[in-house]
């Protein structure tokens, strides 16, 4: 039978680095059953029979955090053959606190003192032989980062596992505590099969650990009985039971350390010196701003957006030029050719309209691809002559002529399907359903990976913990964590990596709140839609775009304040205490591994939901009941599609918001596939009647137009982002809660905007206005009501 070795240790002790070094790529990453705590196991590189389980980082084996409960349940119930207790050598005293508890479990333990390279660099000396004698378990010096002592530590653990000597801790508590412990053991633990673990149980019962009382099935009578022992001990030592145990453990550690460790010098460490600057009260925010700007600049505006454009427009679009060589020339040529073509179109339109050619200047229409806005430019007769010459002397520019052109996957698939004369419906399913769906998943992966490199680096070097410290005071006010800033900043580019960046938030409640609110910030894909509404309904007013961002920030703040007063988010915000790990340069392999793990989990977990939803929306868009029966539709026939019927069925929901027609409803639904699709859908629907922008302006008032914008900005994000939410919540109930809340909130805000907005646009006071004002009142109540769950 194989041997299972558990890695246990404090957060930031280098456990994960050790785990990666020991297992290489033979890893399985998942979740502990039912909780969001990450589970990792792998096979030891040197011996496939040895399985290594990486327990979450913990400070003690008390039952108060999920990580602790998960770890100790694993250790007690699954009983791994050995435990490697990883200890940060630069911080022995605090790390040994956990050790004193681990050795009580009765499982063979070996201690790995990690970061020995740093210890030596500091000039400190640790007498491991003496330490080993004092604690009674083997102690091995290692450096996971420098691959030092790795074989030794596993060999020692395997040896300990094979010998399976019962571990008995050398440490004894104060006489009266030991007396109580002996009594507890005698009274409650004679039934426990494994004698070795009895001491641990008795200490936990002494600490009044309710989970252990439950586990052992103690009767109330027994609990009351031992309570007397505990109380008398507490009285004698004048402290509560838990503090007695904690204090004694630290005293014990103090005596061990005195005998085994020689510190070279006291004073500020390098990390302290860096902290003096980085978390300095004057410099902290400017430094933070610079770091954030860099992250944003690279992962959202430059490298990240190139990566997304390449993946979406290149790989899952028409195609791309290898290394972008020739792209610029090709685009210039296309622009020139199109311009010339449009001038000729304009000329012909003029001829059609007036029956004769223009003698002077004439107008020609130019359509913006992203926003479907049409602009009229003026051309002279000379321009027309030039354009004619250009068109006659040039071919339509072909991308192949400008560099090495690699066709996109859809193009490639389409030509393949054409070659085998594929049925139109099947072709549509494959291209617009499956390939587009896969594209929606994979198209964001490059940008996600770019962002994750940054996050992994910031986390591994130690800065992320400081971010929480610097921003916490501001975000705490509306129920979020200091670390929520990063998801929201990233969310301005794309909500998916934004949601996934919430992983760095430890506190479960803060993380859920962040996931629920991150997509309120307009992402890049919503910008064309915002521009379209601004252009079509508000005549290109400059205030529309900034108002979208203010709306997003407003939504986050109000949601934060309202939600933290609800039952599901109830409870005091955890007081802010966290360890700031020492600064150090992470290794490239660890950064890349972390990036890949997160990226892959997105593809796997979010991929399915995105793909399925895309296919469903494709089907409902392109199929419908026409006068000649149920059949596949052309793009322009969207009015007869199943989706349009659904839109007609659902549009009543939006009547109070002022856009209760099927067109707007259908556009909102296709927006779920990708928010930029709203523009495309509206262009198809309204384009049938002529000018898209003019038809759209006629369909909306100012109030209903802005309500439409607000609803689509705030409601459930695209399927890809919903997939990310599902992945990060890791809980179906919470996923639906998040989506439900977002849609509900969006609806209420839309209602307020339309109904109250009507007052200002001169439509007068109606019954609806009353509802609008009532909604504002509800919102205010949610914001200012007393928090009955707070102490």
């Amino acid at each position, binding site marked *: 039978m194989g041997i299972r070795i558990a890695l246990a240790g404090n957060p930031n002790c280098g456990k994960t680095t050790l785990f990666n070094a020991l297992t290489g790529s033979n890893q399985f990453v998942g979740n502990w059953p039912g909780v969001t705590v990450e589970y990792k196991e792998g096979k030891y590189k040197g011996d496939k029979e040895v399985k290594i389980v990486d327990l979450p980082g913990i400070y003690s084996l008390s039952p108060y955090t999920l990580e602790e409960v998960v770890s100790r349940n694993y250790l007690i119930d699954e009983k791994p053959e050995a435990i490697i207790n990883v200890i940060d050598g630069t911080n022995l005293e605090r790390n040994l606190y956990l050790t004193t508890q681990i050795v009580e479990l009765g499982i063979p333990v070996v201690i790995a003192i990690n970061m020995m390279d740093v210890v030596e660099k500091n000039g400190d000396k640790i007498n491991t032989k003496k330490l080993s004698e004092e604690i009674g378990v083997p102690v091995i010096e290692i450096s996971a980062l420098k691959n030092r002592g790795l074989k030794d530590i596993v060999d020692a653990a395997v040896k300990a596992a094979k010998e399976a000597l019962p571990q008995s801790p050398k440490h004894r508590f104060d006489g009266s505590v030991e007396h109580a412990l002996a009594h507890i053991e005698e009274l409650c633990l004679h039934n426990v099969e494994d004698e070795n673990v009895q001491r641990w149980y008795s200490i936990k019962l002494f600490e009044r650990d309710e989970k252990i009382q439950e586990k052992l099935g103690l009767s109330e009578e027994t609990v009351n009985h031992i309570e007397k022992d505990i109380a008398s001990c507490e009285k004698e030592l004048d402290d509560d039971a838990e503090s007695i145990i*904690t204090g004694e453990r630290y005293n014990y550690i103090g005596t061990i350390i005195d005998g085994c460790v020689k510190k070279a010098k006291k004073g500020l460490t390098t990390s302290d010196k860096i902290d003096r600057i980085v978390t300095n009260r004057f410099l902290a925010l400017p430094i933070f701003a610079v770091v954030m700007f860099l992250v944003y600049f690279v992962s959202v505006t430059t490298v990240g957006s190139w990566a997304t454009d390449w993946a979406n427009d290149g790989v899952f679009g028409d195609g791309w030029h290898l290394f972008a060589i020739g792209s610029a020339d090709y685009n210039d040529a296309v622009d020139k050719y199109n311009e010339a073509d449009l001038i000729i179109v304009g000329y012909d339109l003029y001829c059609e309209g007036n029956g004769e050619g223009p003698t002077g200047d004439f107008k020609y229409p130019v359509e913006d691809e992203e926003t479907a806005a049409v602009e009229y430019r003026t051309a002279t007769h000379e321009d027309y002559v030039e354009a004619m010459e250009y068109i006659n002397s040039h071919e339509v520019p072909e991308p192949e002529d400008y560099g090495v052109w690699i066709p996109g996957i859809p193009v490639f698939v389409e030509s393949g399907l054409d070659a085998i004369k594929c049925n139109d419906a099947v072709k549509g399913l494959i291209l617009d359903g499956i390939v587009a769906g896969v594209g929606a998943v994979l198209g964001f992966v490059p940008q996600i990976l770019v962002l994750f490199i940054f996050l992994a680096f910031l986390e591994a070097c130690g800065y992320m913990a400081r971010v929480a410290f610097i921003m916490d005071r501001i975000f705490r006010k509306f129920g979020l964590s200091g670390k929520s800033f990063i998801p929201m900043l990233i969310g301005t580019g794309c909500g998916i990596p934004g949601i996934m960046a919430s992983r760095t938030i430890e506190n479960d409640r803060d993380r859920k709140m962040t996931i629920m609110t991150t997509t309120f910030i307009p992402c890049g894909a919503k910008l064309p839609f915002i521009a379209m509404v601004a252009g079509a309904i508000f005549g290109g007013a400059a205030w529309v775009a900034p108002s979208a961002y203010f709306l997003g920030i407003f939504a986050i703040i109000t949601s934060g304040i309202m939600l933290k007063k609800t039952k599901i988010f109830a409870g005091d915000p955890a007081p802010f*205490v966290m360890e700031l790990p020492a600064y150090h340069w992470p290794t490239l392999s660890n950064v890349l591994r972390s990036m890949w793990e997160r990226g892959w989990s997105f593809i796997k977990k979010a991929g399915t939901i995105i793909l399925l939803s895309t296919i469903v929306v494709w089907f409902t868009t392109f199929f419908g009941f026409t006068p000649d029966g149920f059949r596949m539709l052309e793009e322009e026939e969207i009015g007869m599609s199943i989706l349009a019927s659904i839109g007609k069925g659902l549009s009543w929901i939006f009547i109070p918001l002022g856009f209760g027609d099927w067109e707007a409803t259908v556009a909102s639904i296709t927006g779920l596939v990708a928010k930029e699709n709203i523009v495309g859908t509206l262009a198809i629907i309204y384009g049938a009647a002529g000018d898209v922008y003019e038809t759209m302006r006629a369909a909306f008032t100012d109030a209903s137009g802005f309500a439409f914008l607000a609803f689509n900005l705030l409601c459930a994000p695209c399927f890809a982002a919903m997939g990310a939410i599902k992945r990060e919540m890791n809980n179906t109930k919470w996923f639906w809660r998040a989506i439900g809340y977002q849609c509900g909130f969006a609806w209420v805000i839309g209602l307020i905007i339309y109904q109250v907005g009507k007052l200002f646009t001169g439509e007068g006071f109606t019954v609806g206005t009353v509802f609008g004002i009532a909604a504002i009142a509800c919102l205010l109540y949610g914001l200012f009501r007393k928090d009955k769950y707070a102490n």
Partner: protein
Amino acid sequence: MMPLVMAPQGEEQMIKRIGGSEEVKRHLQELGFVPGGHVTVVNEIGGNLIINVKESRVAVDKQLAQKLFI
């Protein structure tokens, strides 16, 4: 006795007492804050402290720092 918030930066202090709720107290103890233990304030922003305790740096907010007495 005074709360740690009032301690000057860079000087080592001994913790005399820890106040606050059971849960908070326990977490502080796990992180190394125990009566009789030594701590040094490394940095302060608006009452929030970075404290050096048992060779590690721990960030605590103002509320909590007021419960650590020296």
